[in-house]
């Protein structure tokens, strides 16, 4: 059902696709669609919580010796769906989002929810009772760094390894803050400064 829906959303636009069409394409009745997915957007997001929870488990399982951002990067690298099917699904999802203003708003809401869950995990790794603004901000920045890497993967050649792109994007992030990782990439991208 989700694959059928994603394909329709991507090719015909999210708003223009009806539940009946999704049912038709998947060879089931509209009632079956409603049983699984009470709303149209729930088709797009149904496994997202699972993914975030898996990511968080991985993050919390990273060695204590790792820095926070380092652990976050390692967990993204381990969790990213990187096979051809995952790439296709994400690419169709992006197209669906581009086709609908409301979906762009909903996507923001889902992102905020995921960031909240990740911020809780950051607090847990720090052995803090509750999350503070520092946890929120770190979760938000790590998430945007990851999303940029995935977007680059979707925009680029299919053979590229998304894990390398994630590691590279986190290295760029560290470089902005003068972190130790910067050394090699800074030499490579030495830009003339006024």
């Amino acid at each position, binding site marked *: 059902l989700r694959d059928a829906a994603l394909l329709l959303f991507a090719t015909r636009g999210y708003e223009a696709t009806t539940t009946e069409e999704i049912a038709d394409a998947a060879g089931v009745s509209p009632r079956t669609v409603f049983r699984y997915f009470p709303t149209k957007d729930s088709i797009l997001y149904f496994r997202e919580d699972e993914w975030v929870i898996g990511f968080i488990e991985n993050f919390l399982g990273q060695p204590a010796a790792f820095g926070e951002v*380092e652990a976050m990067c390692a967990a993204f690298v381990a969790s990213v769906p990187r096979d051809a099917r995952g790439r296709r699904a994400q690419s169709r999802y992006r197209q669906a989002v581009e086709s609908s203003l409301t979906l762009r708003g909903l996507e923001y809401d889902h992102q905020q929810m995921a960031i909240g869950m990740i911020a809780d995990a950051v607090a847990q790794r720090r052995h803090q009772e509750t999350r503070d603004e520092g946890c929120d901000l770190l979760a938000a920045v790590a998430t945007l760094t990851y999303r940029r890497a995935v977007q680059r993967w979707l925009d680029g050649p299919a053979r590229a390894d998304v894990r390398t792109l994630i590691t590279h994007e986190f290295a760029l992030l560290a470089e902005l803050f003068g972190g130790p990782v910067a050394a090699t990439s800074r030499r490579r991208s030495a830009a003339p400064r006024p």
Partner: protein
Amino acid sequence: VSGSSTSRRAVRKAETQTALRDAALELFAEFGYDGVTTEDIAERAGVSARTFFRYYPTKESVLLGGQLDWYRWFAEVYPRQPVGMTDIEAVCRTFVELAPDIMQRRERLLAYERAVASSPTLRGHVQDYQSVDRENIAKVIATRRGLDEPDESCRLLASVGLCAFRAALDSWLADRQTADFRRAVTDHFRVLETALATDRGQPRS
């Protein structure tokens, strides 16, 4: 004489624009963004629907149109930061310089936040405006770095800078105790510096 009538016209124009925006914010707070039409806004401001569209091309531009000036302002202040300053410090300093202006608009910003919270469609518009903002800021950052075009590092910095600014704004709006928005900005940037400067930021091989 003609100079003074031109300026009177400019004043009247600015007044109408402000009246329309205030009317829109009031109505959005009352009925939610999706429950208000451009006709409603014009009526509340005491002008015709046609006048509304002379000032604002779309309903969302009443709320989001002002953002454009904001980024023009960023483009003006950012290049003035001292040459020896790192990019991230310069971004932080630029937002700090913007703070007094933001602090004067607290009530309006709260009304704006309420309107945005009332409508997923409006949140979609906000995303679109923000991606334009990000690209504009990335260009300004590229210029200071002596690049013709923003590279991925400039774009990442623009995203991270806006994210930290946004978080500082949320925290300042949510908490009456944090009277000083400048403090909120520097605190948020410091959190990132602490987390990232001491962290390798990528897995050891």
